[in-house]
């Protein structure tokens, strides 16, 4: 963080600033494991599944979308984890937000942008409640957010069941027709690029049906754009701002941070709200892409978020991690999950492989970090 202004405080011989070699500085970056992992994973699947369709345009789009999903929730989970807490209600929040949009926008007939804004507001409040309970009671966030995992899932099933006697609500596509806010969660951008690529034979085209002749990919989905926006925003906040330093301090040693004037409680509550925000973005992208909300969406997504963050080099105990690392973790997770299909691994074994690779990545990360930082 101080690399741009060396020894600004007390001249070149300030004892508080230790000189480090460039190589060592690079090695202690939390992203290192992620970068190595990404390269390894791509080589692995390039060899194993290179000609299977995994690296044709559709295949790339497929694992990119899966990775982007992981990235969106991993950004929130990562920043929260750096602040020393974590959130098990992410998956339930995704289902809850989706149903909320459908209830307000379809069942109760509000304009879609209003439904979206109300949903964001509700979810941010729930995130804040999560945070307030954690900082006020001092209970582990594991327990508090576990409670919300059940509370939110229960409501998600109860409300549409009671009001509509069903748990899948469709008709969102029609209700969101022409809505400006819904559009920023579900449009394909840069379509011209893919038309050009199809014209030049780089990607295939539909061979029959109403879309005959159109490129197989109509554009980059907003899901992926959102993933990039959140990753970049998260990275800048965490590494380039005062607030970012507060997050590290709150997660590293909360008491010490309080002594030097960091508003630890406020930081943690804000981070819980950030995970809620990310879950809601995820839900919006999903709901508007698929045109329906269901009460069982998002099950187990909280673990997928945490897994991506941990592969990306963040410490479960807080105070260490990076959003870039989490994004790379999400990329690895997505590519492995999808790649094993293309490599034709039997689907029940596929989870075994996934587990082994995750374990391997985490052990490697920890090992590298211990050697480099000399931490015990």
């Amino acid at each position, binding site marked *: 963080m101080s690399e741009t202004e060396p020894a600004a405080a007390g001249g070149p011989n300030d004892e508080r600033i230790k000189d480090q070699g460039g190589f060592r500085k690079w090695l202690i970056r939390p992203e290192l494991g992620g970068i190595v992992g990404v390269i390894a994973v791509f080589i692995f699947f390039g060899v194993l599944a290179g000609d*299977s*369709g*995994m690296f*044709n345009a*559709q*295949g790339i*789009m*497929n*694992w990119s*979308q*899966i990775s982007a999903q992981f990235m969106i929730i991993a950004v929130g989970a990562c920043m929260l984890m750096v602040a020393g807490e974590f959130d098990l209600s992410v998956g339930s929040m995704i289902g809850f937000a989706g149903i909320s949009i459908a209830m307000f926008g379809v069942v109760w007939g509000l304009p879609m942008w209003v439904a979206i804004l109300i949903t964001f507001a509700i979810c941010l409040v729930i995130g804040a409640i999560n945070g307030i309970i954690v900082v006020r009671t001092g209970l582990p966030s594991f327990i508090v957010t576990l409670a919300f995992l059940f509370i939110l899932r229960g409501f998600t099933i109860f409300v549409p069941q009671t009001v509509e*006697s*069903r748990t*899948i609500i*469709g*008709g969102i*596509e029609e209700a969101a027709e022409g809505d400006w806010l819904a559009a920023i969660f579900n449009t394909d951008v840069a379509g011209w690029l893919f038309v050009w690529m199809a014209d030049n034979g780089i990607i*295939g085209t*539909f*061979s*029959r*049906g*109403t*879309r*005959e002749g159109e490129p*197989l990919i109509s554009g980059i989905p907003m899901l992926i754009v959102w993933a990039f926006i959140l990753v970049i925003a998260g990275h800048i906040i965490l590494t380039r701002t005062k607030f970012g330093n507060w997050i590290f301090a709150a997660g590293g040693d909360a008491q010490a941070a309080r002594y030097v004037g960091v508003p630890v409680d406020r930081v943690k509550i804000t981070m819980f709200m950030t995970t809620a925000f990310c879950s809601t973005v995820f839900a919006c992208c*999903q709901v508007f892409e*698929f*045109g*329906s909300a*269901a009460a*069982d*969406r*998002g*099950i*187990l997504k909280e673990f997928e978020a945490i897994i991506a963050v941990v592969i990306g080099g963040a410490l479960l105990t807080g105070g260490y991690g990076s959003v870039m690392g989490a994004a790379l973790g999400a990329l690895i997770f997505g590519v492995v999950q*999808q790649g094993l*299909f*293309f490599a*034709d691994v039997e*689907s*029940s074994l596929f*989870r075994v492989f996934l587990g082994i690779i995750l374990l391997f990545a985490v052990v490697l990360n920890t090992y590298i970090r211990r050697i480099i930082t000399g931490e015990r």
Partner: protein
Amino acid sequence: MNAFFKTLAVSAVALMGATAVNADGHIGGERYVLVSHAPDSDSWWNTIRNALTLAGEQMDVEVEYRNPPTGDIADMARLIEQAAASGPDGIITTLADPTVLNDSIRAAVDAGIDVIIMNSGTPEQARDVGALMYVGQPEYDAGFAAGQRAAGDGVTSFLCVNHVISNPVVAERCNGFADGLGVDLGDSMIDAGQDPQEIQNRVMAYLNANPDTDGILTLGPTSADPTILALEELGLAGDIYFGTFDLGENIVAGIRDGVIEWGIDQQPFLQAYLPVVVMTNYHRYGVLPGNNINSGPGFITADGLELVEALAGEYR
């Protein structure tokens, strides 16, 4: 209609030229992916997987089974996109939620991959997404066949015990049964709820209030098991004509003991097996059945019970 057959013939010939015989003249090795909506914990689908493997071996084609681990239909849409990207010869999939899955399936069809819908969905929905056909049990037709069978056995009035009143597709079973029997459904369908105690009491209450009822239809193990208890309590077990949808341990025992006349099996085996056989022959020889295939209703009575018990959970 003529144009349709012409298109079919042309595309069949084109396909024969394109994919039936590989460059070296060798037949075999087509690749089919089956995508289901079932979560990992759903053991009913084990039969599907076994049938798929068996069909793959018999036809000398590669088969793969994929499912969303948590049963999340949005994840399932991605699985279909993923399967399409891998460029298989065909995709076999359920249509568990048309709103979510239609676009993904449609894109696969338009990209030149043949699709067969199995298990969930209807022939109409399958046609809407451009699938070759639907293989499954149309609920109304299954109920109708059961009604005709019951009519032949002398049933004149009935009670339909519906434990999933919220699902209109399942209620079609009762509608079909009434029509097959040639009686008006009227209020002979009761909303039984999911609680076994409640179901048992409601069945008893209905039979007490309508003593001339001579037939009962239950829509699955959830309603069949408590109904068996209700009949035992009323002393009607074996006396009243009793048929049910789906199979379960108690249902099989009921059939053996003569309490239940028959169980209607939608035959998951055929739902996985037939699409592989149909597609393989379509890709190799350009032949395609002219219609959808009903995998059910298959009636299971005391006669064929030994085989059912022996293969339960494996192929039945």
